[in-house]
């Protein structure tokens, strides 16, 4: 029943989004009224009251000591002197702080990884096969604008739990495969059925300048090729529109257009109805995105925008919203204390946390995205943005109401108001306190059991420190040998062998991948950290891959970084 209603709602939504809110409320309430009768749900009451808490209704509107009542998934009452219904389970809120559930403005949560790429040993035949496979699946590079995240979502999983553990209740999620990575969905981060998670879909069309490609051939293989590919695809969509229109108007004697679901999926974006979510962190990428948006009269959202503050005036003038990454550049964890770094790098690290404040000052509307940050760092870095000049109200708006409005659900989410979806976070302290913890979390009115904070992994020693000498020697011996690693690429997992040796005082090594072998250079092994550089040939261009791994016993995890392509995590072990 509820399932049916919701899918009906979604179908209606795509055509008449303005009616969605009302319909959603009516139908969901109806469905819930049938399903959740008090007698059937004795263990799980459907009404809650959070009592005597400080309630942050919305940015700047605070009830010092009040109560929020939620029932059947909605906020039914909020205020200072509220009569608590007799059947509501009471949550003592004294000393706590209630916020509207936080919204993460861009994630890949719940989207399963692509099927694995042919793994195998590093022989020529396999490399050829892998390239052929990559060419046979152009979607891996080109993406598919008709792919709907809402239909791919798998509920649950550790990353969803971790995201919730800091108070994020809602997230925009999108596939990240290919240049046209498909249509995103706004989901609530609880529930067993994918269809029930979706708050709104489709929200936007994800477009990225990185092909997300790991190895293998095919056009486009460069940044400028990617720009040309995006432009050509929109021109193709325009031609498709013209052909279909002509056919619909004059059915006789007119060639019937070939049905093309990808070009059809681009039409709402071309009409300016569906925003195009460009993933663009550098101001160069943002400039590219804005040019494409101008050329095709698209409605852009800039996602990432780490360096967007450099274009704050332009973004404001064009009234372009931003989903701002707080994944600020970091000093590498494995660098010695006295490591010399270029001023440009130091400046970027000092400037980027000020970016949010600069955007707010310019009047750019933005939400936040965690990027590749761990959820705990997501909130901590928002706190850093506040320490760097962003007002608390602006920060809270970005985390709640701005995001809700940007994704078209301002009526349902983003503040603690009667009739809104009961996504609530109860914190032990103000959001801005670094040690604030989540006491309670409600998603769609249901209390969520919180995952315990994972213990922080012990900090590894810095290389080149005398006292670490013997430890380092042991770690070094442990690192040598043959490792079997699995690299997570957008095309799926790839099996890679890493060989580390020591000849006299020098390290040597090699990387064996399905697409070829590469010798390692600049190898450093110290304090459980491995770093090395391999020249990998991709499409006839040598790419300097930097491998950084952390060893714990017999296992290793880390990242392979390919400039211009991306960073790919790996895990692995050393077979005995």
């Amino acid at each position, binding site marked *: 029943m509820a399932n049916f209603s919701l899918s009906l709602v979604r179908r209606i939504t795509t055509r008449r989004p303005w009616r969605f809110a009302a319909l959603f409320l009516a139908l969901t309430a109806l469905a819930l009224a049938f399903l959740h009768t008090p007698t059937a749900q004795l263990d799980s009451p459907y009404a809650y009251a959070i009592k005597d808490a400080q309630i942050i209704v919305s940015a700047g509107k605070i009830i010092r000591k009040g109560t929020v009542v939620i029932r059947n998934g909605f906020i039914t009452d909020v205020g200072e002197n509220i009569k608590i219904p007799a059947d509501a389970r009471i949550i003592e809120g004294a000393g706590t702080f209630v916020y509207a559930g936080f919204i993460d403005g861009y994630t890949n949560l719940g989207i399963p990884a692509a099927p694995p790429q042919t793994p195998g040993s590093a022989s020529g035949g396999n490399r050829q096969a892998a390239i052929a496979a990559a060419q046979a699946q152009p979607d891996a590079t080109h993406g598919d604008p008709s792919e709907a995240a809402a239909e791919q979502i798998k509920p649950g999983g550790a990353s969803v739990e971790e995201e919730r553990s800091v108070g994020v209740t809602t997230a925009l999620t999108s596939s990240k495969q290919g240049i046209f990575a498909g249509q995103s969905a706004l989901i609530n981060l609880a529930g067993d059925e994918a269809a029930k998670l979706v708050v709104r879909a489709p929200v936007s069309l994800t477009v990225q300048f990185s092909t997300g490609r790991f190895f293998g051939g095919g*056009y486009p293989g460069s940044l400028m*090729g990617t*720009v*040309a590919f995006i432009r*050509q695809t929109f021109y193709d969509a325009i031609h498709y529109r013209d052909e279909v229109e002509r056919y619909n108007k004059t059915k006789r004697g007119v060639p019937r257009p070939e049905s093309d679901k990808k070009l059809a999926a681009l039409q709402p974006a071309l009409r300016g109805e569906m925003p195009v979510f460009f993933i663009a962190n550098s101001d*160069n990428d943002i400039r590219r995105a804005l040019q494409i948006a101008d050329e095709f009269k698209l409605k852009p959202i800039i996602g990432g925008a780490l360096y967007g503050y450099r274009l704050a005036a332009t973004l404001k003038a064009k009234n372009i919203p931003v989903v701002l990454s707080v994944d600020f550049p*970091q000093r590498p964890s494995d660098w010695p204390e006295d490591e010399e770094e*270029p001023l440009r790098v130091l400046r970027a690290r000092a400037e980027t946390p000020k970016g949010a404040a600069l955007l707010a000052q310019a009047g750019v509307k933005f939400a936040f995205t965690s990027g590749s940050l761990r959820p705990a760092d997501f909130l901590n870095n928002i706190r850093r943005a506040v320490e760097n000049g962003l007002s608390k109200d602006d920060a809270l708006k970005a985390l709640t109401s701005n995001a809700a409005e940007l994704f078209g659900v301002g009526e349902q989410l983003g503040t603690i108001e009667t009739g809104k979806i009961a996504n609530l976070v109860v914190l032990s302290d103000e959001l801005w306190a670094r040690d604030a913890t989540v006491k309670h979390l409600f998603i769609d009115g249901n209390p969520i059991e919180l995952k315990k904070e994972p213990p922080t992994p012990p900090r590894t020693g810095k290389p080149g420190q005398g006292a670490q000498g013997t430890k380092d020697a042991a770690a070094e011996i442990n690192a040598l040998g043959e490792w079997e690693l699995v690299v997570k690429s957008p095309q799926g997992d790839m099996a890679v062998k890493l060989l580390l040796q020591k000849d006299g005082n020098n390290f040597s090594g090699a990387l064996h991948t399905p697409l070829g072998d590469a010798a390692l250079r600049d190898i450093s092994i110290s304090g459980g950290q491995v770093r090395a550089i391999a020249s990998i040939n991709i499409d*006839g261009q040598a790419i300097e891959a930097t491998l950084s791994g952390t060893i714990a016993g017999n296992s290793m995890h880390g990242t392979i970084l390919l400039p211009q392509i991306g960073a790919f995590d790996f895990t692995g072990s050393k077979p005995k």
Partner: protein
Amino acid sequence: MKKVDAIISIALALLLSFATSAQSLPHTATQVTPKSNAAILKQPLAASAAPPTNAPAAKELLITNATILTASHGTIKNGSILVRDGKIAAVGANLKATDANAVVIDATGKFITPGIIDCHSHTAVEGAINEGSLSVTSMVRIQDVLDPYAVNVYRELAGGLVTCNILHGSANSIGGQNAVVKLKKGKPVEEWFIQDAMPGIKFALGENPKRSNNLGANVTQRRYPATRMGVEETIREAFIKAKDYMREWQEYEAKKANDPQAIAPRRDLQLDALVEILQGKRYVHSHCYREDEILMLLELGDEVGFHVQTLQHVLEGYKVAKEIAAHQTGGSTFADWWAYKLEAYDAIPYNAALMTQRGVITSINSDSDEHARRLYLEAAKTMKYGGLTEEQALRQVTLNPAIQLGIDKRTGSIEVGKDADFAIFSAHPFSVYTMVEMTIIEGEVYFDRKQDLERRVALKKEKEELMKKEREMRQKGHMPTGRPAQPQPLPGAIDEELLDHGHIKPETQEVRNDQ
């Protein structure tokens, strides 16, 4: 590793020096003396985040007492140049500014040349310079991937370089669209493009396009073409397609007024660029070495109906200079750089001079971020090899490339009405002891050696302070360092010339970016 980092740091310091002090320090260069206190040079900001200054520029700039190498009409001793609104207003002796706020640069003992022009550059490109996946990539554009933060741009400014023809690489028979820019570091990149420069495109012949088809040592599947014959056929076929496409559009334009069912043909960005070539709206800049392939392309152009604007590298151009001149095609070559591969063996340092003497408009280019910093010395070599005159030699890196790029109406020589693009040298630009002291683009100073040296102190201090602040943050635990190192990209990490000179092992790089 450490050493490399240190070098990069110094280079970056050099670069960034411009940015900080442009805001904080008054203009202190001794040779610049504003006529009144109110006049402060409109300073471009260099590297980073700061938006360009909006301070109104002094309307006039007067450079006095210099030896002016005009590149068009000889050398003027003790000459002055008056600049108004970014253009050269007057050149001669004893000029006076009309604006009381004019900036005056006393250039006694200095030499001034037109801003240097490089007809073959790959500088400031973000990502790969080759879209190497296809043999015809006329849809890709350098203009989409210019990186205004590239460190090399400042280094090139320090070598008097003002204008660059930034080309796609040479992996494909028909490569991508080039961009002709002035290195206005600190300005939004949109302002770099020379708007009235003719659009262009890169072609490539010979070894590069025929060997770029190899996906790796173990792969037998290859990209067409694999021979010189195939390169010719690839270009011919592309133009046949382009002509069909052009006809399709012409038919549509003819019938759209009367036929309600007519819809525009599918716009094809790849063929659009080729149609522009056929219509004479886009220049062909073709990479080439051997005389046979040079003649092949010229004849193919005659057959298909396109003009070759410049032949790039063209190391055997001296053998077919008459034919090149007859096609009104330019030659852009190296001064004395060859033998880095088989097709570059039959080269001689007299190439530029011999082509010039046969009536070919010839230029000397860099194809390298490193050579680009001292193109004036490359030009000087044509006096030794082939006996060009001083002015002919200077034109190799000024007026001639301007003609080749179709921008000689606005730049390339010191003449009234042209853009005020200059390099000011400490000594004669062909002396090995010379240094560029100032680089001026459209009347604005983009490089000032004296200021640069002074700013290094402030930059050093800024760096120390930033490092100190970070250390404190780290101690407080407010600066997560969760991930391992991301390598700092080396500026121009893979220098094409290093590859072809064998400094990098060939197996690590199968496709040369260029040459």
